[in-house]
């Protein structure tokens, strides 16, 4: 069994009209499931991944051999308990873990799409994943959940399909990507595009990889996922395997070495063009746009119970932006809970072992499931 065979794929036959105007059909959507769908089909949770995540949320990722990205939260007996719930996670379109993405071969040219791949949006991602409900014959999901870009998909899903989820948990996200976040994403994209090996996006046909550019993009982004206090506590000014400064541009400091390592392992598992496409989708995300700037209107038809979670040290998607969603829902009398979790682990808190966060998710899910 080759590694790619370990990826489950739904071939979506139905045409999907993208926001950019193009229509795609017969495209692959890679997914993974955890736990069992019960007879009533009322225990399904759809998990949306963040920028560099994929469908392998739990257990061991068979491709990278690393732990699933949400291993702390998701699995048997965990906060999202797969002994109890049936969890579906899909790779977003534009991604690089088996779903339709820029490294796929264009049947017309027999070459990888590269930057001829259509620009996709959060809306497109969610509309593509909706096909999984039909595939599994699930009338209504128990929950849609995700952090960061996953949270944006949660919001978009509920807005697009107001009666298809009993509960929704958007975590550490926003309803409208901020200038600061667009700026940070642009920094990453420019880093990739500045790499000579990027070749206007057609690097694969030339057997090149813009690894340097992608690694720098990851390094810069990685800093934004942490907090100043967290970095200071973990690294401070500690030196990397040396007693004193070397008076060179070698990685003297542990933080430098750590970032370089993060960059180098990232390029082994992630496609540079996918990074461009997915960050673009995040930047284009503004749920209020269609509704004249009024976020409440995006949720007017929804009967979903919302539970929004933010983290004290998250400066990328700060509490204030999460609270905007709470305010918009309260303004129209929707059922919404909100918790800000204390953590010095920054935006990444939702991926890490933060007991208050994990307990909160567990309690909300289990108590809500009793009531459906």
């Amino acid at each position, binding site marked *: 069994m080759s590694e790619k065979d370990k990826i489950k794929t739904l071939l979506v036959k139905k045409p999907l009209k993208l926001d950019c105007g193009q229509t795609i059909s017969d495209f692959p959507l890679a997914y993974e499931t955890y736990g069992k769908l019960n007879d009533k089909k009322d225990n399904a949770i759809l998990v949306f991944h963040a920028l560099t995540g994929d469908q392998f949320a739990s257990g061991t990722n068979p491709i990278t051999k690393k732990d699933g990205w949400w291993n702390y939260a998701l699995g048997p007996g965990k906060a999202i308990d797969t002994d109890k719930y049936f969890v579906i996670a899909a790779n977003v379109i534009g991604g690089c873990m088996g779903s339709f993405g820029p490294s796929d071969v264009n049947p017309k040219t027999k070459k990888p799409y590269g930057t001829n791949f259509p620009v996709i949006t959060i809306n497109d991602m969610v509309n593509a994943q909706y096909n999984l409900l039909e595939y599994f014959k699930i009338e209504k999901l128990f929950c849609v959940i995700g952090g960061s870009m996953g949270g944006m998909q949660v919001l978009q899903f509920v807005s697009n399909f107001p009666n298809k989820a009993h509960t929704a948990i958007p975590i550490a996200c926003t309803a409208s990507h901020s200038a600061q976040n667009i700026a940070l994403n642009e920094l990453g994209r420019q880093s990739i595009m500045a790499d000579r090996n990027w070749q206007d996006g057609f690097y694969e046909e030339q057997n090149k990889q813009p690894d340097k550019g992608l690694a720098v993009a990851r390094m810069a982004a990685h800093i934004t996922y942490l907090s100043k206090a967290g970095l200071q506590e973990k690294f401070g000014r500690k030196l990397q395997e040396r007693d004193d400064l070397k008076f060179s541009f070698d990685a003297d400091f542990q933080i430098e070495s750590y970032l370089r390592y993060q960059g180098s392992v990232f390029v082994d598992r992630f496609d540079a063009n996918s990074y461009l496409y997915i960050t673009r989708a995040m930047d284009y995300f503004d749920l209020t746009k269609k509704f004249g700037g009024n976020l409440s209107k995006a949720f007017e038809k929804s009967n979903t*119970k919302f539970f929004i979670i933010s983290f004290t040290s998250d400066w990328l998607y700060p509490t204030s932006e999460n*609270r905007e969603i*709470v*305010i918009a829902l*309260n*303004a129209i*009398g929707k*059922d*919404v*809970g*909100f*918790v*800000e*979790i*204390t953590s010095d682990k920054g935006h990444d808190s939702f991926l890490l072992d933060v007991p*208050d966060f994990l*307990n*909160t998710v567990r*309690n*909300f899910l289990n*108590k*809500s499931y*009793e*009531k459906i």
Partner: protein
Amino acid sequence: MKKEFYNIANLVTKNAKILDVGCGNGELMKYITENISKDIRGIELSKSNVQKCVERGLTVIEGDAEKDLKQFPDNSFDFVILSQTLQAFLDPENVLNELLRIGKKAIVSIPNFGHWKVRLHLLLKGTMPVTENLPNEWYNTPNLHMCTIKDFENYCKQRNIKINLKNFKFQNLFSELGIFILEK
């Protein structure tokens, strides 16, 4: 559950839409959810209390009543409950206005600084009163704006706030707690 909560719960009507401002660990909300109305949610400032509410399966919004009530539209709740918190706000007048704006009715309870024990304490000992209901010393009390039942009634009178019900018998001297239903 403390007696005050039973008294407050008795004042809300079946299936009413309710907001509990400063809902604490959710004890009152849980009782109301199970016995009177499921359409109840709370606002709470303390993170540990918010966690307890979530554990109990209650809808809670972490937030500060002094800042976060303005997100609710006018008359969006049948009842808004404020139990023994009014005196701890920086700007109680603003909070009261907000309660009466977002709730058709507001149920407000206050610890009564006019109770005889409080009066006697100050008279005989000459120090700031410390009682069961007011357990803190002057330097660490969260209570910034203590008032008596009489003060509160005067306040409402001056602002044409209707006091629909007063849930205490011997008024200012003998009630440790005043519970009021207010309407604009």
